[in-house]
């Protein structure tokens, strides 16, 4: 079956905190195919880190479970899906609010979703209590000036 995307990958790992770095570094390496700037890559790494950390500390509350990360590329857009089968989010609107946290005792800042939303172009949260949570994020990598120039030249030739 032919994929709708240009490229796809999937990771599955235990909800251990040392996998937070593993997940963001792997997604960043995959995203590098789109030739992002250092800043765009840092945005993606930070957003992935936030989503995976949420699954580990909120979804599974430090119990063992599986976190899945899928990444798909289509043209110059990356779509990232982070899924857990943890306890789910009761009130998504509340969870999205800046500074809202249920884990203040762990010095959590409550900025996770705010960071995901401002570092990525689109963030979608779907969650069912007792079943799990899926975060879908999209970011379009801007073409560099050089690439745009090449494309313009190509189009000029076609005309």
């Amino acid at each position, binding site marked *: 079956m032919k994929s709708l995307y240009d490229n796809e990958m999937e990771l599955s790992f235990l909800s251990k905190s040392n996998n937070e770095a593993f997940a963001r570094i792997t997604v960043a390496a995959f995203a590098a195919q789109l030739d992002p700037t250092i800043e765009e890559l840092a945005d993606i790494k930070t957003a992935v880190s936030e989503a995976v950390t949420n699954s580990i500390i909120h979804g599974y509350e430090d119990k063992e479970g599986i976190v899945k990360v899928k990444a798909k590329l289509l043209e110059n857009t990356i779509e990232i899906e982070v899924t857990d089968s943890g306890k789910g989010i009761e009130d998504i609107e509340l969870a999205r609010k800046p500074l809202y946290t249920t884990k203040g005792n762990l*010095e959590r800042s409550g*900025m996770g979703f705010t*960071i995901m939303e*401002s570092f990525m172009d689109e963030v979608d949260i779907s969650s069912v209590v007792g079943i799990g949570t899926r975060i879908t994020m999209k970011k379009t990598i801007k073409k560099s000036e050089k690439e745009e120039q090449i494309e313009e030249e190509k189009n000029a030739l076609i005309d």
Partner: protein
Amino acid sequence: MNTEFSELDKMLYVQITEEIDHHTTEKLRRKMDYEITRFMPRKVVFDFGKVTFMDSAGIGLLIGRYKLAKMLGGSTRIVNASKSIKKVLEMSGVVRIIPIEEKVC
């Protein structure tokens, strides 16, 4: 993480050398709190020059250390933060209580 305490101006210099996320913060928190309570500095300087990554776990870490230092009579500063780290710090508003200074210590 490396630290240096200057007796003369009661300044604790903290150079963070690891990536800052939920996984690394627990150890960093313990080390920082040990140094802050040991020296009771008048000023704590966090050097981010060697930090290549920080997510929102770093915000909680910094606010917690700010509170502890303040309780013991000290102020806190951040130096040498990269563009992407500044982005996280500025978004959270933590820079209002822990100013970013450009100077290299």
